[in-house]
């Protein structure tokens, strides 16, 4: 069994949860009803995935009696919600990409596009994971990711190879978001045993660049990667995301309805 399964599982959960929370901001604000529903559905898939990972992390913590220092005032058995609502900003280890502000529709699409292709690569690798529950969640999630990839590919093509204005906005968004994609393949002490990040990056690069090229968009050359998320060092937006997401459970701990 690879080491640091708890940290790794929490990382997968954090990525999916923060992605879901950000995309949910579009609920009721999409450019068309069908697209509003599409993005909300994708957010729901992410929420489901994060719940599976958080519960798995909680189960391991309960079995190993490895109560993390980040759960002050919590008691055994920990549940998924303890891990989602009672951890602090620096204890979240999601990639910076997922906490980027939505900005305009095109930038939200771009963020979803990068993340969908990333999840496809990571879940494919995790199908063989020694932890059978992680492999099972990956197997289940991959079926959902297939639709996220297709949806975001379609939008990248439509906006990139669209009007002059949509092209300009997409190229500008690409220049802004691209520096956050390198971190997706960063090796850490808790992922090197399980992921071949180099192979994943190759697969991701090939798939993503094929779509961008078809959409007439150019990938910025030589950029400095933005990193820090895996160490719990986040962008300014992260505090606002958590403040809104965790508010209720912080003010009324363990409230239920």
């Amino acid at each position: 069994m690879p080491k640091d399964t708890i940290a790794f599982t929490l990382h997968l959960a954090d990525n999916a949860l923060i992605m879901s929370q950000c995309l949910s901001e579009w609920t009721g604000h999409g450019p068309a009803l069908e697209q509003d529903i599409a993005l909300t559905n994708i957010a729901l898939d992410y929420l489901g995935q994060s719940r599976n990972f958080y519960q798995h992390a909680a189960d391991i913590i309960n079995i190993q009696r490895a109560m993390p220092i980040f759960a002050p005032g919590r008691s055994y058995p920990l549940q998924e919600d303890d891990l989602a609502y009672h951890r602090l900003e620096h204890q979240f280890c999601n990639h910076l990409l997922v906490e980027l502000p939505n900005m305009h529709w095109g930038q939200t699409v771009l963020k979803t596009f990068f993340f969908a292709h990333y999840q496809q690569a990571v879940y494919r690798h995790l199908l063989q994971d020694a932890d059978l529950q992680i492999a099972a969640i990956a197997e289940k999630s991959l079926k959902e990711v297939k639709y996220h990839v297709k949806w975001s590919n379609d939008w990248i093509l439509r906006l990139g190879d669209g009007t002059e204005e949509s092209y300009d906005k997409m190229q500008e968004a690409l220049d802004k978001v691209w520096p956050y994609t390198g971190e997706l393949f960063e090796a850490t002490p808790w992922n090197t045993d399980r992921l071949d990040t180099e192979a994943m990056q190759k697969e991701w690069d090939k798939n993503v660049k094929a779509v961008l090229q078809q959409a007439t968009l150019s990938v910025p050359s030589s950029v400095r990667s933005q990193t820090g998320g895996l160490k719990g060092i986040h962008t300014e937006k992260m505090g606002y995301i958590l403040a809104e997401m965790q508010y209720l459970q912080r003010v009324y701990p363990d409230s239920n309805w």
Partner: protein
Amino acid sequence: MHTTDYTVADIWQLLEKVTDPEVPVLSILDLGIVRHVHIDDTGRGQQVEVTLTPTYSGCPAMDMIAANIRIELMMAGVSKVNILYQLSPAWTTDWMTESGKEKLNAYGIAPPVSLVGHQDGQEITEDRGIPCPQCGSVNTNVISHFGSTACKALHRCNDCNEPFDYFKCH
């Protein structure tokens, strides 16, 4: 309370009465989400364990289905009900029963189709050619791959001009 002893087959029969809250014409057996039923005979009545495979990770109907299974079995006199979840092998629409697919179609939702093949000279893909549940035409195309619930997509019939839900192949 003394309860009758149920066999595994009896429990399966009771589960047939539990429906999908979002697609009420389908029982959970039609959906193909029940993996195992196990009965433990204890001194104080029977304990039943039901293992489910969730459809989509975030499907909000799963909690309600679990609650409805408990209610159904406990009303029948089962003293304790445990619901377990099994993610692998992942649920697939191939596990949906033929009668379930017919019920869906009659309800106005196009059932999942095998995506290889032709009908009336029209190639069937997830983008076009899904038979319209209203008029049967295959002159149809997708509006959005995401619909009113996680398991459905939105399509349109170009012959009868009706939009319709399609239960996605999964």
